[in-house]
């Protein structure tokens, strides 16, 4: 985006009362989350050094950066699972639809229900069937009616692009599935409790290209209803699926913007060096 276009968009956004991410090159219209001054770490070590970022609604936002830059810590702060690690500390604001999720009044369990997470390694409950893996969250919340559960299981598996492959063997163990299917099962499990945001921490790093393509296809479909934040080491994956991309380095947000311009013509020298492999 040229400077003129950028200025024009900022002017338009201001006129319409829209928000703009602070260190970003992009105006984010309709943000689902606003992160302000987010600092996090473990004991004396500070991993995140004050992140300001707006997460756009119903978009895929990719977080990329070298190992140790704080990507995973960042998304773990977004649904308050970072604080589950002994010695973890968090400071700053994470606003979800205008409410700070770190306010003392907010129940972290309720937040985790609204913001689901898919981890790097597929982790279906090993003793449970495919059906029960998906239904587990609902059952935990007291839903017992078979018809309701059946409906949610099918809907969630369909949205995770897994239904057609498992519909005849729903009572088979979840861990009997292939790695790619297990990861999609985890996505279905996250979807079953109807979250508003899905966080994905390198969901395809252990998968082959075919399984990766299915997850990416699912992401593109899911963003029609959900806000997705994905941490990825794979820049091509970010380029393929993300609408917005953020580049982190040493706990700081270096650049944030629409994916295509960021990959074609990054505004920051550090981003340029990282994505072209000229780092270090």
């Amino acid at each position, binding site marked *: 985006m040229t400077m003129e276009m950028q200025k024009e968009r900022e002017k338009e956004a201001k006129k319409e009362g829209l928000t703009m991410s602070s260190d970003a090159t992009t105006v984010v219209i309709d943000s689902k989350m606003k992160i302000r001054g987010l600092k996090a770490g473990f004991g004396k070590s500070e991993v995140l050094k004050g992140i300001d970022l707006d997460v756009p609604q119903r978009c895929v936002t990719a977080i990329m950066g070298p190992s140790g830059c704080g990507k995973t810590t960042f998304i773990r702060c977004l649904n308050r699972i970072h604080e589950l690690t002994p010695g973890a500390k968090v400071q700053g604001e994470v606003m979800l639809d205008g409410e700070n999720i770190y306010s003392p009044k907010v129940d972290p369990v309720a937040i985790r229900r609204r913001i689901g997470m898919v981890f790097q390694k597929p982790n279906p409950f090993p003793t449970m069937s495919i059906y029960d893996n998906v239904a587990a969250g609902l059952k935990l919340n007291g839903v017992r009616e078979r018809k309701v559960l059946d409906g949610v299981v099918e809907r969630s598996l369909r949205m995770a692009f897994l239904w057609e492959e498992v519909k005849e063997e729903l009572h088979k163990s979840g861990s009997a599935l292939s790695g790619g299917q297990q990861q999609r099962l985890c996505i279905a499990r996250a979807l079953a409790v109807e979250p508003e945001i899905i966080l994905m921490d390198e969901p395809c790093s252990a998968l082959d290209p075919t399984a990766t393509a299915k997850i990416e296809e699912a992401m593109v479909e899911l963003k029609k209803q959900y806000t997705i934040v994905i941490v990825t080491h794979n820049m091509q994956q970010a380029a393929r699926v993300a609408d917005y991309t953020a580049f982190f380095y040493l706990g700081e947000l270096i650049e944030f913007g629409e994916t295509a311009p960021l990959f074609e013509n990054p505004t920051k020298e550090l981003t*340029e060096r990282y*994505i072209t492999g000229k780092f270090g």
Partner: protein
Amino acid sequence: MARLMDLGIDKLRNLLLEMGELSQQTVVAAIEAYHIGKNHQDVNRWSIKLKQLDDQVSELSIELIARFQPVASDLRYIKACMEISYGFYRYGRYAHDIMEVLDTFGDLTKCDRSVVESAAEKTEEMIKLSVEAFTNQDVDLAKRIVDMDDFVDDAYRGYIKELMRSRKVDLRCALSQTLILRYLERIADHAVYIGRSVVFIVKGEEPAIAEKS
């Protein structure tokens, strides 16, 4: 630390440098042939060679994209190289077309060649600058080419308007010079595109296109 992709990028640059030199030589030879009224035998061969080099640039660029998935300045460089390579190839092609005019119309030394000569001089200068701008990644030179475009355009359009106003014309001279001016005008356009591509490589964005009246 050198990256694997750098080997390919260097090869691409060397191909382009070879094309720049050859294309300049080809156009200069064609213009010289026009001056002396005698066909230059090598122009056709060089023009074919430029086409082969352009094909090599395309193949190498696609290979680099497929193997390394370049982004940012690397992607811009490869994209621009493909465009510049095409421009160099077109220089050769129009030089070949000028030779065809000489073949068709024969010796044109008796025509009033002042307009063609001044347009040819300017075109040669633009080609030289385009090759230099690419070789040195020089944005200032590249912008100078963009600013020079009007001269050759005006020469071509002005000549046609002049012909339309004339009551009596030498058809042989008028047709041949119109064609040659048209080819020079196209060469000058490609020099401008190359200049714009050089700006794109260095700055990440192309200069705005000025609207013509």
